[in-house]
């Protein structure tokens, strides 16, 4: 193995700038004649807007301009689009009420943007925003997920019952039959709690308009600048794409929340032409809590039918998913395409049916958050499997083993074809690392200390590497999901790679460079990765869904192959051999079976100084593009095992061991992969133990809108994780990789909740399993 190549634990190229304060995040960028924006946000969850009086605010010092929803509407601007069309089971399309970038006649959640104030300084903008007077008629708010469809109030006139769609997936009749003829049916009602994504860098944007070229530049904290540009230009503002450059510079975490096209940056771009000066906006943390798209928020009933041996025969899932006040960019796909298609889990359950009712409420929009649909699916599957094991008095590992898929490719009854995996191997490795066999002794020992010890398993699967464009299109996607890459070899043999993927912590500048350096046989320091700028990168669909390496990396891989293929032709000319006789290995082109060779750098120089060059057959230069559209999803899978001790006096849970064994396919940089797993686990454990957005059920106020009330995991809330991998290479992408970004957040909540309910001896405790909830469960049990 090359010391800095594929599989090596290479420290990150990007770290020096981050560690020395030289990272450049959106808020760090100030432009000449900079102005600052502050948004006037609705203090009410649901209110009619009778009027906006900005006269006195406009007269305040430093105010440059104030715009309202009426100003936007008057300029003919429509609303934000939703990128995925879902049809209800009766064939009707989902309800897509307008999502104005500034509210026009109604505000629909606390934090909804009603007006924007632009001023010389941020303080002036904020002071004037406070002075904007909005005349509201407060309306009753729809808040609760489970009862939204029966609420008296309507969030949108276009959806009087607050239902966006009722979507069905799978064979309902076959499932009903399985349930009717089952030896036993396990059943569970569970809630997947709403989360705030909480990237530590709040969302930010800085928009500038250049009159001489009639073009715009937008700096924005975003995970997919090309998608941002496409959506904003083509679907909202009508700006020609070539007149807009979107730059997502260093981005301080995303976790899904920075995929979407938001109102704020769209307003900034629109207003930048009107005020003729750059406008900057950075969310404060409370704005982030209110206006970042949230995650999860499902209410589900699941029934699992099985035979006398605990073999699963059918599963029925009924879910209500809260999409919030408006459909965010990918909101409709998360509780459907990214959820129900994963309900087979790792198991051979032959019949599965899911029905998902998506409801509008007067709450912040809900969209993809780390895992997006797949954590919800895993939570359903792995909690009901655990319940089934308890009902059937089977060991939780054993019931999983009896139902594992073991032959591949495997077509699930919910529409996916798993290409490869080895679920028993991951389970066995996890059981061994967690010393599962030793648990009863540890439990007994804990009892002598007055502690209740429990252990929980979760064998998750996810579909990553989003996605085959034709499959996504057939399922309702309104965009392609390929990736683009460009490998630009400089005359000296140094390489700049442009990728449409975007790194906001994942370490692409290192991992992608490892791939390229490995393939070209050059030092990693000779390869730089560029991303996040539509002015530099040819195209891109961005980073989410654990897709960067599997899709973006594959595009780069293909482009490198093209570079090598062209290099072979140049080398053949230089070495006076046939193209087909040239081999490329370790950075050297060689005539097979001889010692005649020419190094990569010489070939590169020849390409740019083509004096001795086959100009009649070959263009000069060495610069190749590739687009890669995958033929299938990738299917990372694994087993997580969590062991907890509960203090019965207080209900406090301590995680005493957490083991994760994951199959991510081939691994380029194990150090980075481990870091991704750790981070995902922290978010999953955060969901299960600490985090949750709470709305007042009457007023619709978000009660958890600061770090005083929303419990973010801190270092002392978490244990050291024991992580390992088992590799079955992906069969359909050139790197054999599957993706690792989301697995931790997908598998861990079920493992933890299975452990806590095991320790306490109850069927379910709602997430987050706060000390009080656990204590109450213990009181109920006693």
């Amino acid at each position: 193995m090359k010391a800095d190549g594929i599989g090596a634990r290479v420290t990150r190229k990007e770290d020096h700038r981050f560690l020395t304060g030289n990272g450049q995040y959106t808020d760090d960028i100030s432009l000449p004649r900079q102005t600052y924006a502050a948004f006037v946000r609705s203090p009410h969850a649901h209110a009619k807007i009778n009027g906006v009086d900005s006269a006195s605010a406009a007269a305040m010092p430093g105010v440059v301009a104030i715009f309202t929803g009426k100003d936007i509407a008057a300029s003919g601007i429509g609303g934000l689009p939703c990128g995925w069309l879902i049809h209800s089971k009766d064939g009707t399309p989902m309800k897509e009420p307008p999502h104005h970038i500034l509210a026009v006649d109604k505000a629909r959640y606390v934090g909804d943007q009603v007006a924007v104030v632009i001023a010389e300084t941020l303080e002036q903008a904020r002071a004037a925003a406070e002075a904007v007077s909005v005349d509201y008629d407060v309306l009753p708010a729809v808040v609760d997920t489970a009862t939204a469809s029966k609420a008296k109030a309507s969030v949108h006139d276009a959806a009087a019952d607050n239902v966006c769609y009722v979507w069905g997936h799978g064979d309902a009749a076959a499932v009903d039959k399985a349930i009717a003829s089952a030896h036993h049916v396990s059943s569970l009602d569970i809630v997947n709690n709403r989360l705030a994504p909480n990237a530590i860098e709040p969302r930010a944007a800085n928009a500038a308009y250049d009159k001489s070229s009639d073009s715009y530049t937008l700096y924005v904290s975003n995970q997919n600048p090309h998608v941002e540009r496409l959506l904003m230009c083509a679907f909202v503002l009508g700006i020609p794409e070539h007149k807009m450059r979107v730059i997502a510079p260093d981005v301080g975490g995303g976790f899904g929340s920075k995929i979407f096209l938001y109102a704020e940056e769209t307003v900034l771009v629109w207003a930048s032409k009107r005020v003729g000066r750059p406008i900057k906006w950075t969310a404060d943390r409370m704005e982030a809590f209110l206006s970042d798209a949230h995650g999860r928020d499902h209410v589900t009933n699941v029934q699992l039918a099985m035979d006398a041996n605990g073999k699963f025969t059918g599963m029925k899932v009924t879910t209500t998913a809260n999409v919030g006040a408006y459909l965010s960019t990918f909101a409709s796909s998360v509780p459907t395409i990214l959820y129900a298609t994963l309900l087979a889990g790792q198991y051979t359950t032959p019949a599965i049916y899911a029905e998902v009712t998506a409801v509008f409420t007067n709450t912040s929009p809900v969209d993809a958050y780390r895992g997006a649909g797949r954590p919800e699916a895993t939570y359903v599957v792995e909690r009901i499997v655990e319940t089934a094991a308890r009902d059937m008095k089977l060991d939780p590992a054993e019931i999983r083993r009896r139902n594992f898929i073991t032959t591949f490719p495997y077509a699930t009854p919910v529409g996916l074809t798993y290409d490869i995996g080895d679920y028993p191997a991951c389970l066995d490795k996890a059981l061994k690392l967690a010393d599962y066999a030793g648990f009863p002794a540890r439990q007994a020992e804990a009892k002598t200390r007055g502690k209740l010890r429990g252990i929980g398993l979760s064998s998750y699967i996810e579909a990553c590497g989003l996605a085959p464009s034709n499959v996504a299109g057939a399922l309702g996607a309104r965009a392609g999901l390929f990736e683009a890459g460009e490998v630009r070899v400089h005359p000296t043999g140094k390489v700049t790679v442009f990728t449409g993927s975007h790194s906001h912590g994942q370490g692409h500048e290192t991992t992608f460079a490892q791939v390229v350096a490995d393939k070209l046989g050059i030092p990693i320091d000779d390869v730089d990765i560029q991303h996040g700028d539509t002015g530099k990168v040819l195209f891109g669909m961005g980073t989410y869904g654990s897709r960067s390496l599997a899709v973006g990396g594959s595009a780069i891989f293909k482009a490198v192959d093209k570079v090598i293929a062209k290099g072979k032709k140049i080398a053949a000319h230089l070495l006076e051999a046939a193209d087909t006789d040239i081999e490329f290995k370790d950075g050297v082109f060689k005539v097979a079976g001889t010692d005649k060779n020419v190094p990569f750098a010489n070939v590169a120089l020849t390409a740019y100084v083509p004096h001795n060059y086959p100009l009649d057959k070959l263009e000069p230069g060495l610069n190749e593009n590739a687009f890669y559209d995958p033929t299938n999803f990738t299917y990372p899978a694994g087993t997580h095992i969590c062991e907890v001790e509960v203090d019965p006096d207080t209900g406090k849970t301590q995680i005493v061991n957490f083991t994760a064994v994951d199959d991510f396919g081939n691994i380029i940089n194990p150090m980075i992969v481990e870091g991704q797993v750790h981070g995902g686990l922290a978010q999953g454990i955060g969901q299960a133990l600490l985090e949750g957005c709470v709305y007042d059920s009457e007023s619709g106020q978000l009660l958890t809108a600061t770090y005083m009330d929303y419990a973010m995991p801190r270092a002392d809330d978490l244990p050291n994780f024991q992580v390992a991998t088992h590799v079955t290479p992906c069969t359909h992408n050139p790197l054999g990789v599957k993706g690792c970004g989301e697995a931790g957040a997908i598998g861990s909540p079920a493992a933890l909740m299975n452990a806590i309910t095991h320790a306490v001896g109850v069927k379910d405790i709602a997430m987050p399993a706060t000390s009080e909830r656990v204590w109450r469960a213990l009181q109920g049990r006693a």
Partner: protein
Amino acid sequence: MQAIQLHQPASLADAAKLRSGNDDARFLAGGQSLLAAMKLGLNSATDLINLAALPDLAGIKVDGNRIVIGAMTRHADVAANADVKRLIPALAVLAGSIGDRQVRNVGTLGGSIANADPASDYPAAVVGLGATVRTNQREIAADAFFTGLYETALQNGEIITAVSFPVPEKAGYVKFKAPASRFALVGVFVSKGTGGVRVAVTGAAGSVFRAAGVEAALAGNWSAAAAKAVKLSADNLNSDLHATAEYRAHLIPVLASRAVTAAG
């Protein structure tokens, strides 16, 4: 944050004068709660009177059977002080559990108790040890100092100069942290000394209070078991986003028993 006038008095008398008659003025000690509140729009002060330059307000002295801690002494300095650790280790533990490390580097004893946040830690020690609050005007007994939610016996223009803590025979503090804020969901300070047994509870009600039932139990039998056996009513305790009154009522004897154990 709103625009402010910042005053930098050089003497206690000047500081007091700046505050007198100005309802929109606040003393600035460490500012860890005050500035945070102002940024969230929860405090509309227009004038801040910075106490940082006043002489002799910071420092820790042993005075006979008491430890006297200056009002501007930072939490980190109390937590790390050898005399405090030796004579009232529970107080060092408490100071070391306030907020977080950076907050402890700036926040002060006087600022904390003057703010009288119902979930802050110091009030539990002040009441739990039966300390005396010294001001530029008088001495105030702990039991008379905290008068309600964010309310104290301090008069307009009155400035805390120090708190005098009697050294107890035994004392312990156990805090059950609210997971988000790290303030006390419930915190219980127990002590046994010349003044008898004192049990002060923070985080559970509108203000720090003495848990009479637990005090009575411990006065008869200073043991973890005795404290734990007490049943408390949830009446008058807080129910909020983070815990119900019932849970808090349950936690008080549990934490009191652990504090007794910690007291040794």
